[in-house]
């Protein structure tokens, strides 16, 4: 969910960024074009003020600078000076068709518009009204008159319209992205839930309805497959129970029958021993499969880990532990007071499996020490033996592995010790941590940490 939110936030920000970039780019372009075109027109423009300066009035009358004619010629322009009565008192290149006398109305007209289609400019000169005419269709003349208030409110209006546009655009963007987010988020959540192995139930509505339906189907199928596997294991282990009970029962009977030969009784004993192994395996398999699919309900109660360990060790000792094994419990002074929250059956099973593991893998006997201590709000249970330990490869695998598939690993190889795998799952179900390490000179140490609920 967080990833999706982050993604959409980034997307929204980048959209705003793009918008800003566009605005900035447009502003720059407009400015550049305006400046360059004004430069261009300034080049070609013949400023009337400059021309006016080149005309002087003296005793001889009106005189022009030698550059004046050249400038005028280059622009194909003409010039004239009118006196106050509208008569042309001086002229240069003045087209023939133009009159030499003007009424004040004509003057007013051409100074604003055109003089017989010639665009003209006027300038007040000591000699009179200086008029410069440009070739026809070379200059566009418009007169712009506007009320001051109107201009002001117009400017504000433009700013308001522009801002409103931007704002609307942002809102629409945000709305759109929000819609996409709303449609996509459940799908992403669904995928996350699927990855966690939980059931997915998306509402099959909206534009992405089909994707939701497909996702629901996929999740359903995954769960069905998982539960089918678990049910299969459950059914098998169920069907095996009665035959195994009969096998164990009769093997025990034969073993205890003193009318039979020692050899037969020993053989019966071997059958019973292996039957018991099979029994433990089935129970582990069933529980592991259920824990993997979170089917086994965890009945959490407050437990004293020290007492729980005492019971497990006592059971081992009461049921006759081979004399080649020494099983011992060590508790640190504060450990007695630790209380953790957990399923006592499962935790007992975990300890049984760990101790059983040391016993099975060290048939010639070893010392097994269980230590319980507390460490920074954690209850630490260490099961350490003086046996042969395990290979570095396996150690690495045990330490790095997530809780693995209960039957086989990726390569189809049976996972070492279903019992250890079950231990992992029980630890995981109790939010604990487990680590494996070899000890010097030889032996295996398994440390498990559980969060402490409280101390008595």
């Amino acid at each position, binding site marked *: 969910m967080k990833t999706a939110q982050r993604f959409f936030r980034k997307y929204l920000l980048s959209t705003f960024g793009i918008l800003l970039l566009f605005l900035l780019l447009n502003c720059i372009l407009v400015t550049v074009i305006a400046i360059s075109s004004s430069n261009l027109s300034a080049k070609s423009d013949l400023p009337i003020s400059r021309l006016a300066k080149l005309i002087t009035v003296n005793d001889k009358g009106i005189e022009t600078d030698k550059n004046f004619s050249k400038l005028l010629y280059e622009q194909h322009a003409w010039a004239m000076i009118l006196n106050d009565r509208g008569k042309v008192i001086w002229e240069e290149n003045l087209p023939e068709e133009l009159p030499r006398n003007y009424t004040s109305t004509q003057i007013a007209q051409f100074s604003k518009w055109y003089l017989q289609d010639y665009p003209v400019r006027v300038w007040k000169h000591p000699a009179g009204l200086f008029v410069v005419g440009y070739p026809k269709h070379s200059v566009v003349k418009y007169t712009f008159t506007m009320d001051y208030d109107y201009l002001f409110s117009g400017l504000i209006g433009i700013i308001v319209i522009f801002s409103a546009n931007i704002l609307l655009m942002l809102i629409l963007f945000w709305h759109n992205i929000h819609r996409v987010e709303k449609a996509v988020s459940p799908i992403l959540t669904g995928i996350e839930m699927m990855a966690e192995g939980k059931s997915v139930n998306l509402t099959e509505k909206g534009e992405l309805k089909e994707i939701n339906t497909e996702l629901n189907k996929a999740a359903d199928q995954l769960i069905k497959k998982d539960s089918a596997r678990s049910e299969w294991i459950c059914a098998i282990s*169920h069907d*095996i*129970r*009665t035959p*195994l*009970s*009969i*096998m*164990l*029962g*009769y093997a*025990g*009977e034969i073993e*205890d029958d003193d009318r039979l030969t020692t050899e037969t009784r020993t053989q019966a004993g071997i059958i019973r021993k292996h*039957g*018991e192994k099979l*029994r433990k395996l*089935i*129970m582990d398999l*069933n529980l592991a499969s259920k824990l993997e699919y979170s089917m*086994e*309900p965890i*009945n959490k109660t407050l437990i*004293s880990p*020290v*007492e729980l360990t*005492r*019971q497990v*060790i*006592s059971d081992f*000792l*009461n049921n006759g532990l081979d004399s080649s094994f020494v099983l*011992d*419990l*060590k*508790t640190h002074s504060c450990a*007695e*007071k630790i*209380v953790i929250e957990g399923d006592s*059956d499962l935790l007992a099973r975990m300890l049984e499996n760990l101790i059983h593991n040391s016993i099975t893998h060290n048939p010639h006997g070893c010392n097994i020490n269980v230590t319980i201590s507390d460490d920074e709000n954690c209850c630490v249970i260490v099961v350490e033996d003086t046996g042969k330990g395990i290979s570095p490869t396996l150690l690495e695998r045990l330490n790095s592995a997530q809780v693995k598939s209960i039957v086989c690993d990726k390569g189809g190889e049976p996972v070492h010790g279903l019992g250890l795998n079950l231990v992992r799952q029980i630890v995981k179900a109790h939010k604990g941590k487990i680590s494996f390490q070899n000890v010097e000179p030889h032996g295996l140490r398994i440390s498990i940490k559980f969060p402490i609920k409280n101390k*008595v």
Partner: protein
Amino acid sequence: MKDSSILVIDDELELLTMIRSIFERAGFTQITTAASGKEALEVLKQKMPAMVILDVMLPDIDGFTLLKEIRKVSKVPVLMLTAKGEAEDRFSGFELGADDYVVKPFLPKELLLRVQAILKRTYPRGNRIVILPAAEVDLDKAEVHRFGKTIPLTAKEYNIFLKLSENAGRIVTIGALCQTVCGEIWQGYETTLMTHIRHLREKIEKNPSAPEALITIKGLGYKLVLKEVQR
């Protein structure tokens, strides 16, 4: 105890034969079997046994229903024997009044021990005397007889001793002992338990500093070593 009548109900005939054989070898003389719920109800109508071993999965009536039927008319101890081991099933069995629960595949010894323990608990016989190396304890009177003297046990000492004698020869954990004396919340009671144990030893041991009957199992709990148990 061995003459107690036990009814075993299971649809697997071979399993029935096996259980009968285990119990008869152990000395039980009155084992009746029933292969279906209907058959079981008929047997139960004729005569209520001292104990019932009941399978949950029966072809006609489900074991829990049968248990309900039994509970309507009798408080006879019932041990549920089943292939189902799930926690929920275990709870529903106990809620309906089952006395114990053994999950298949079971070890014959385990079944035998559990049945014997239930029978012992349900039908206590008088004159229960526990004989220890240096003393005799009369459980009915809560008294210790030693060197011709009679020493009474306090209620707490009695409870501790009873728990130990019920599990004679086996380790009983410190927690389990504390729990028998002061119930579910027992943490912090360990020191008091040690005092009770010391007093018990003073009453039952020849030399309380070197106990022969009430042995400490370091870190785990205590074990009662008997000379012989008489009933």
